[in-house]
């Protein structure tokens, strides 16, 4: 197990380095750079050239790459071209805000999905199941930007009960209650389509568990139905959820971009998006580092959790 873990971590570290190297070259080869954001008669080509020199972009790409590798290995992610601040401090400022939104959404997504899946799997009527399938298919097909705007329209402008944007009201920045109110709509926007899709996995898994012979045994022993469902069936039906949960971890830092833009949520997604538009190379690479790390860590974690939950997989390694 230890050897397996070390091998996985080694491969992941190598993969992370390759991803970042590829990102470095792709963004440098892509058209434009920070000095080319201007198409203004008052900004001469000479002035643009001076800016390129000041930012170190006039050096050969190989030299820039070597500098980047050395600096990254020293734990220095550089300074943002746009914000003129350390990339690490910018990420440290925005990642918690994204995590707050995405973790809430993820918790809501899995909570709703598990309950909805169980509810649908325990219904016997065709109509109820048909309605469940129809509704869940509809919800998981909704694009999040559209759902976000509809939620704003209904709850902010129609009913006026929830704020449409930002993390807090002006002058209420320190109030957790105020933040919670602002969190509801963006978290639901992120959670609803995901919950609809995940609940279909849960439905299938729970339904299969209910068909197993040992479940019949529990029934024949006249155990209470609630105990059968939530003690014996749920435990086994949750196994596929572990994989899904592990695969959802990268979403914690990278999945909320559109929602952050619609709700003006000051998170990392917006920061990275703006970095791409302004060709802020250090910030793009910093954000890529974090996202890639989460993807790789999520995969490793999902494997480990699955191994812990299912001895057959553990032994196979």
């Amino acid at each position, binding site marked *: 197990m230890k050897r397996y873990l070390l091998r996985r971590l080694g491969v992941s570290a190598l993969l992370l380095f390759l991803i970042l190297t590829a990102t470095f070259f792709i963004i440098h080869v892509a058209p434009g750079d920070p000095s080319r954001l201007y198409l203004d008669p008052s900004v001469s080509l000479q002035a643009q050239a001076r800016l390129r020199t000041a930012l170190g972009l006039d050096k050969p790409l190989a030299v820039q790459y070597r500098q980047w590798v050395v600096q990254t290995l020293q734990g220095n992610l550089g300074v943002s071209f746009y914000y003129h601040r350390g990339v690490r401090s910018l990420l440290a400022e925005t990642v918690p805000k994204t995590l707050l939104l995405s973790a809430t959404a993820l918790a809501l997504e899995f909570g709703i999905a598990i309950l909805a899946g169980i509810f649908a799997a325990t219904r016997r009527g065709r109509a109820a199941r048909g309605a469940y399938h129809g509704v869940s298919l509809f919800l998981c097909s909704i694009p999040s930007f559209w759902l976000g705007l509809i939620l704003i329209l209904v709850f902010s402008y129609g009913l006026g009960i929830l704020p449409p944007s930002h993390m807090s009201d*002006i002058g209420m920045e320190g109030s957790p209650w105020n933040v919670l109110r602002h969190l509801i709509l963006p978290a639901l926007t992120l959670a609803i389509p995901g919950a609809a899709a995940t609940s279909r996995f849960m439905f299938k898994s729970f339904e299969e568990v209910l068909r197993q012979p040992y479940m019949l045994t529990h029934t024949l022993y006249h155990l209470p139905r609630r105990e059968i469902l939530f003690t014996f069936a749920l435990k086994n039906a949750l196994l596929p959820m572990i994989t899904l949960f592990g695969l959802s971890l990268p979403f914690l830092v990278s999945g909320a971009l559109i929602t952050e833009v619609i709700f003006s949520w000051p998170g990392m997604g917006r920061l990275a998006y703006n970095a791409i538009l302004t060709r802020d190379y250090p910030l793009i690479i910093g954000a890529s580092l974090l996202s890639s790390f989460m993807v790789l860590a999520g995969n490793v974690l999902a494997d480990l959790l699955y191994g812990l939950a299912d001895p057959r997989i553990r032994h196979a390694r």
Partner: protein
Amino acid sequence: MRKFLLLMLIAGFWWGCRGETTAPAASKAGPIVVGTVGDLDTINDFISQSAFTADLVKKLYLPLFKEQSDFQDHPPTFLPGLVESGDFSPDGKILTCRLRRGAVWSDGVPITSADVAFTAKSAASPEVAWTGSDAKQFITGVETPDDATVVFKFSRRYPYQIMDVNEGVIYPLHVYGKVPFSEWHKHDFSQDRVFSGPYLLTDWRRQESYSLEGNERCVLRGPSTPWPVVFRVVPDQTSLLTQLLSHTVDVMEVIPPRDVDRVKRDPRIEVVSYPDRQYVYVGWNLKHPFLKSREVRRALSHAINVQEIVDTVWYGYAKPATGPVHSSLWAYNRNLRPFPYDPDKARALLKEQGFADTNGDGVLEKDGKPFEIEVLTNKGNAIREATLILVQNQLAKVGVKVVARPLEWNVFVQKLMGKEFDACVQGMRVPTKVDLKDTWHTTAIENGLNVISYSNPKVDALIDRARAVEDYHEAKAFLEEAQALIVDDQPFTFLYENQRLNGLNRRVRNAKMNVLSTFFNLEDWTATE
């Protein structure tokens, strides 16, 4: 374990929502809330990449002079800023300025000529690489005979000397001077909040909001303290519009023209409109084998119905453009008229040039080649994209096939600067300093923004003469002639000059937005409950 998880959740929640608490608003009416799509990137304009920052920084740091919006009949005049009075030497090459007595930075340190000299030095520094530094090219030296006097020396006399001196604001030597120029691009100037302007930046949350409070120590302070203003960053224009309509924000810059009627229906919101200092055009690449012909370009301009574009895309909130100088500027040639829409004349001109639809496919051909051009524009600008589609339809009617290609901004700029295009729909934002050299002079093909490769020796000579003369009346005559020649050549089809449409909640009083800036007199704005 459950308790641990619960604690982690609470800690995570606290971590995510922690932050400084803003001071409560000075009045019951609360601060004026301005919704903005753009974010403030830094408070040092010399290293900024944002036009929005440049506008806001003028409220934090005083310039030497305050530019006025009276440039319709002459170059803009200036009111005193940090400079109380100034005189030119008889030959016009030396400007001696006396700084305002009692001017101090917000930390109480006096503002002296050393601050002005330091700012001039930083503006010229290649390590700072300020993109506006070309404005200082004729300033040969800055001297400080005493703390209250600054002397600017020029290589020659010309109409824009005060404007060039005034380009950029004045930064504090005792604060900014601690950071070597080579470190400016890496330095977080938000830690150094010492200001001289009417406002202080009191709270700054990147991607969220920034708050301005009145600076009690500003030497140009009026009888009352400026009203607190909060800028809320709302990156999505649709969300921003809904916030204006729900009165969550008081001010919104640039309302899409299609939404203006909707905004006007709200009795609490006023739509303030004034000319935007830009014109939109179709630029023809003169290296193209068909487009290098003046007659062909004139035919294309005759085929484009600008009024239809103005009515359809701008809902009437624009007017046809006539030439390369914006109609709000003193150098504008008032004798020019919009190029007439006349598709029959366009067809006739094209026929004269040897174009004919020989195979009956609706597209003209010449020398066996179809008249098919690719027209670029920047993706994401819905108005430009719609303009391009209308141009495509209108040119199709005279037998010219247009392939519309919206491109991401960086790709678009690369194609333009590399001259790898047939034509483009683009906007030209014009500074109040009229100089046609960077766009229309032959030398600007290699060293400037003459991306269409326009070259007319007569126009070059007129531009050079306009730049060389000392008197603006003389310069105007040369510039008017140059405009007439350019319009005659039609290297651009000049489309329209649009209005800037801002939404303003009527609770905000005394706001005078104008062609120079939405926030021209921000320090005079007040609000009611």
